[in-house]
């Protein structure tokens, strides 16, 4: 669907060359929700803008449905852009126009009759659940409502692709969830290919099928979201993903207050990461039943990513030394990642 081949983008800022995107290759499939995540300044925005050439890459090819769009004429490119909707962090609605007029803006240019446009706009407003706001002005709407209008506007010309540039970053968590749900529905109903760029790990976790992690202009890892969270390949992927969970909070406590009464000083703390069907509860009782090893749980977290559980437990084991060895062997056999925290 969308192929980015060897994309590079350099800017000149104050006589200095800034390499915003470096050798990026991505293949985004039809009807998937693809995330691009990374810290601010990682080059995500520039990268996503190369998909509709709002930013023209310095080198590389952008291929959409087999066509290298970097070779299109200005006019052909403008026609193509009608089939790629885009929404933004700050919504970018026209403040002097009503909700209705904002959605009409891209439709007006297509030359279809007024009656058809009205019908289409009504359908779109229904889709984003804003039927009663047609005559409101953007400044009378809440952030979530503005983003819904922006989504309706982006979908007006029935695009195949929707680009979301930090679309939920200016919204509160509850509104974010409702917008994400809407995007997910659109993806399923309309078979819309959605590219989401965000620094919010939760967004990726909630709706993306696959994601690319960006750092300093490079894509350092592309993977299904579940694998990205459960088995990040690259060290910096791990750093980024750990920021999202609350394991770090536990490690901080561990480092600060060594004196917690229930943490024994002289024995190691293990971090177990288990995925899919393995569950922590059963494991703990197995360890006791098989090896008479008791596990003292210091930290636990279960995430559901695309409906699959991803669990983490920090434990200290007590029992016969020999049995603890056996227990650790057993844990590894269960395909549970084992890491020594301390």
């Amino acid at each position, binding site marked *: 669907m969308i192929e980015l081949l060897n994309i590079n983008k350099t800017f000149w800022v104050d006589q200095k060359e800034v390499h915003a995107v470096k050798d990026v290759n991505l293949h985004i499939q039809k009807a998937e929700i693809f995330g691009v995540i990374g810290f601010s300044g990682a080059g995500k925005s520039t990268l996503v803008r190369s998909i*509709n050439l*709002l930013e023209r890459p310095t080198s590389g090819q952008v291929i959409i449905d087999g066509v290298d769009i970097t070779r299109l004429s*200005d006019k052909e490119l*403008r*026609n*193509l*852009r*009608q089939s*790629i*909707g*885009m929404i*933004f962090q*700050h*919504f*970018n*609605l*026209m*403040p*002097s*126009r009503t909700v209705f007029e904002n959605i009409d*803006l*891209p439709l007006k*240019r297509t030359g279809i009759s007024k009656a058809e446009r009205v019908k289409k706009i009504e359908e779109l407003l229904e889709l984003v659940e804003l039927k009663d706001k047609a005559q409101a*002005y*953007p*400044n*009378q709407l809440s952030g979530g409502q503005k983003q819904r209008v*922006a989504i309706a*506007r982006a979908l007006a*010309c029935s695009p195949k692709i929707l*680009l979301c540039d930090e679309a939920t970053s200016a919204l509160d968590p509850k509104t974010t969830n409702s917008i994400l749900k809407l995007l997910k529905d659109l993806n399923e109903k309309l078979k819309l290919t959605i590219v989401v760029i965000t620094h919010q790990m939760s967004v990726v976790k909630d709706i993306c099928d696959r994601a690319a992690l960006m750092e300093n202009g490079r894509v350092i890892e592309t993977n299904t979201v579940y694998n990205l969270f459960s088995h990040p390949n690259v060290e910096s992927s791990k750093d980024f993903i750990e920021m999202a969970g609350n394991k770090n909070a536990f490690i901080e406590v561990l480092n600060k207050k060594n004196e917690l009464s229930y943490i024994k000083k002289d024995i190691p703390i293990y971090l177990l990461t288990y995925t899919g069907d393995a569950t922590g509860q059963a494991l703990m009782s197995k360890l006791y039943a098989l090896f008479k090893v008791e596990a003292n749980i210091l930290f636990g977290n279960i995430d559901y990513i695309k409906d699959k559980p991803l669990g983490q437990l920090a434990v200290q084991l007590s029992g016969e030394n020999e049995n603890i060895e056996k227990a650790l062997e057993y844990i590894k056999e269960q395909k549970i990642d084992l890491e020594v925290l301390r």
Partner: protein
Amino acid sequence: MNDLISLIMPNFQRLSGEFYESLYQTLIMILVSGTIAWVLGIVIGVTLEVTRRDGILENKYVFVFFDRAIDILRAIPFIILMVLLIPVSRFLVGTGSGLYGSFVALIVGTVPFFSRQIESVLSHLDKGLIEASKSMGFSPFEIIFSVYLKESIPGITRVTMITFVSFIGITAIAGAIGAGGIGDFAIRYGYQMGYRDMIWLVVAVILIVISLFQATGKYIIKKTTH
């Protein structure tokens, strides 16, 4: 009524014909040169904004040309500019003096100031709106008309009001050196003949014209700001 007017303005009855004539001339100056200057100012203001670096029709040469020309023209005091432009006016309108001879100078004296203000209004427009319209496939001309200008109506109205006041100022100066109008009337009767009542009349008329203009502007701003 006539008695009252005679009491307040003893010279009015005698000079009313000339006063109406000069008021007419001023209104023609405002309508003709004001309208042309307004359109040209918007065209050049838009040109500056879209041809600047990273503009939607970036063009260094066009931008630098207008940018410099405006700086130079704005630096010349209007009264000197008028004299300087006499040959240009002769070439364009056939005369360098009188009512018609004032049009060129009034336009050249207003456009640089006005187009700078238009440029400033347009450059304050949220760049996200431009980006969004590009993403919808808008052409540069569609962006200019349906985003830059349409979304800036309150700002354009505001700077039109500001410019109008200084424009009235220069029509009076133009009058003083031969264009006629109420500026000329005020100089001849108010200054040279010392008729205080005629000065007050001119002041009152100018205040009324400006107030009407401001009121209309405020109404437009109110109606177009949401």
